[in-house]
């Protein structure tokens, strides 16, 4: 009967994207309540941090209507996380890359990480949260079976370029396939174009997501940089279809696709 005790799946439209909750633990009231709480949390994050909402705290900060000192401890913590990501990425992640305050590159991963934690603390041990293409995995997809995450091929819509396996892992991908050239090289102020996409794995989604953004902005030097980071691995696809991965990347062998 174990397969009829499968958990629950929920799809939430929030933060300009879609968050998928895939919970494989037995469906019990505590986990259902935690799912509601996690969804409310995501809407809270959207209200406070969205750069698309003129009344959000971040928008008001960007317009200098309020100062950092006026903000909640939570907002100050997020800004501190952003500064930390700027430092550890050598400036390739920047919440000021576009010239105005935009912590979006970190906030989504941080929000999903928080939602994952809410579920975990309520007893959900086997969960996969997908925040618009960036994931936080915990536990297993089934007893003895790790989660399997396909990475969308940036050059061949509908196809996968590799499959990542993991139990407790964050997986984040940055690329131009969905939103065009939207990642800015913070050092030049121009759109980054050295990679078609880059996938980063790491222990938590907050930094993994920001590192994916940083790696994409870096382009050619992303591989060496990711290899130098403790606990993080990467897979990159070049615009001509060639790909690379760091030695410890938890993905399956990529079928050879020679550039046409």
């Amino acid at each position: 009967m174990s397969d009829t005790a499968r958990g629950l799946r929920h799809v939430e439209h929030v933060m300009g994207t879609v968050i998928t909750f895939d919970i494989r633990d037995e469906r019990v009231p505590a986990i259902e309540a935690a799912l509601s709480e996690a969804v409310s949390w995501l809407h809270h994050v959207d209200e406070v941090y969205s750069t698309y909402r003129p009344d959000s705290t971040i928008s008001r900060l960007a317009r200098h209507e309020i100062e950092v000192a006026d903000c909640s401890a939570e907002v100050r913590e997020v800004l501190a996380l952003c500064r930390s990501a700027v430092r550890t990425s050598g400036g390739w992640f920047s919440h000021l890359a576009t010239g105005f305050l935009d912590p979006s590159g970190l906030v989504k991963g941080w929000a999903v990480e928080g939602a994952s934690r809410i579920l975990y603390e309520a007893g959900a041990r086997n969960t996969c949260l997908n925040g618009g293409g960036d994931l936080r995995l915990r536990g297993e997809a089934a007893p003895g079976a790790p989660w399997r995450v396909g990475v969308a091929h940036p050059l061949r819509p509908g196809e996968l370029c590799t499959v990542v396996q993991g139990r407790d892992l964050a997986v984040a991908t940055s690329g131009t396939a969905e939103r065009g050239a939207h990642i800015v090289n913070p050092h030049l102020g121009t759109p980054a174009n050295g990679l078609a996409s880059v996938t980063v794995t790491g222990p938590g989604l907050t930094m993994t997501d920001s590192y994916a953004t940083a790696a994409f902005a870096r382009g050619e030097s992303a591989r060496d940089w990711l290899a130098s980071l403790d606990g993080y691995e990467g897979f990159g696809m070049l615009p001509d279809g060639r790909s690379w991965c760091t030695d410890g990347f938890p993905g399956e062998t990529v079928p050879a696709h020679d550039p046409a």
Partner: protein
Amino acid sequence: MRRAVLAAASTSALVVLLLTLKPHQPAAPVGAPPPPTGTSPAPTGPASPPGGSQPGTGTYTGDPVSTQYGTVQVAATVKAGKLTAVKVLQVPSGNGRDQQIAAYAVPRLTKEALARHSAHIDAVSGASYTSQGYIQSLQSALDRAGV
């Protein structure tokens, strides 16, 4: 390589079609993603399956979709969370050339779709999609099929 271009276009079309599949059985495990629910979410995971049917089992028929090559419609069969069959219900047949392309492309693309899904994945990572982009994403297909 016009042939290749057409094949690629057809691949995209088929994938899009697979992604727009909707369950047509009341007993199908998961319906379409729920609309935004504000701060009071109503989780819609698969309930205990009635009548002994397994989660992630059912036949999903796609809406007829107009492509630049004509109208296409497919149905997919999922058993125990795995895509087991793709049936093409309608393909472009406006002229001999269309039929010729469909004759060789559809079986091949069906096989590819099955091969891709037999890799069995739980989720998809990719460049951040918007709410709109999600509709055509592989993740959306997984969510709909509950696999």
